[in-house]
């Protein structure tokens, strides 16, 4: 598995510096898997367009799961699509993150009551790091979700957590 899972002894000064450097590198170049599901995908494209510019945060759309670090689940996840997303998630190399964008991906959104074919939230299939609310969320809301993900990566550490 990736570097992240090795345990190092705690409280080592050198580790602290390397930690920040590793985290900084991982968070400032999150490559998103370029695929969208529904209306939130159009808002995600608008975010990577000139007005809100995902590239400012180092986010480039990569097409193969092999080279992607994060998936932005943008849109309604149906049961037929859920198995595909699970397989995509497994194809990605290890330090990987998931942003669930929009009400549909968070908990089924407007389709939670009568949607017989809608999966009620992507966290039933893959572990989600950041939930971005909105239907569809504004591009700034998605950027704020990305900043929250970057915060989360910043506090990750190679050290073994002392419970």
């Amino acid at each position: 598995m990736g570097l992240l899972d090795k345990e190092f002894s705690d409280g080592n000064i050198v580790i602290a510096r390397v930690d920040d450097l590793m985290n900084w590198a991982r968070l400032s170049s999150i490559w998103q898997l370029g695929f969208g599901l529904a209306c939130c995908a159009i808002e995600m494209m608008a975010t990577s367009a000139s007005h809100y510019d995902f590239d400012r945060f180092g986010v480039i759309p990569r097409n193969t799961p092999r080279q992607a670090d994060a998936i932005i689940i943008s849109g309604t996840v149906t049961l037929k699509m859920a198995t595909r997303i699970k397989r995509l998630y497994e194809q990605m190399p290890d330090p990987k993150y998931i942003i669930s964008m929009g009400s549909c991906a968070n908990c089924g959104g407007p389709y939670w009551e009568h949607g017989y074919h809608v999966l009620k939230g992507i966290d039933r299939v893959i572990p989600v790091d950041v939930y971005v609310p909105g239907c569809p969320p504004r591009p700034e809301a998605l950027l704020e979700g990305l900043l929250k993900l970057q915060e989360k990566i910043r506090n990750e550490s190679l050290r073994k957590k002392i419970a």
Partner: protein
Amino acid sequence: MKQYLKNTFDGIYTVLVGMKITFKHLFTPAVTIQYPDVKVKLPDRVRNRLYVNMDDCIGCDQCSRACPVSCIEIETVKSIPGEDLGITSNGKKKALWVTKFNIDIAKCCYCQLCVFPCPTECIYMTDVYEFAEYERSNFLYKFATLTDEESAQKKINYEKFQAEKAAAAAKPKPETPAQTENKSE
């Protein structure tokens, strides 16, 4: 042969025209809004996060009936006559204790159908769009101002009042109606 030369000339000419346009754009100023440092002021009718001003809410359940996604849950307890629950901003007398007012913003589809039917305009959409969370359970916003034991207390009062009224009604009919009249003002 003529078509051959025309193709070559066309190919080169249109490529140069395209390159002129992109080069011109190299010097036009970028339109990017640098989000975290520069936050654009949104227009006033913008629809983002829902907010309920609880001291205006009379618990009439109009908004939860109008919501297509039914993400608003309201529970109310009738107040016993003597209690004073205050006046809403537009002067309507409040008669119900709102013990539970939950909006599951994760389900909300931001269609603003709940804002129009509200008699006291206490539910409206603010322009706050930065509320991403790490946990999904944080999306369940509880607006009710009564704490749990207070609402339990209200319920008990109401049941007690109900039992009294039933007992009073079961007693002889003639002389009780006068009293209940003034008691219920």
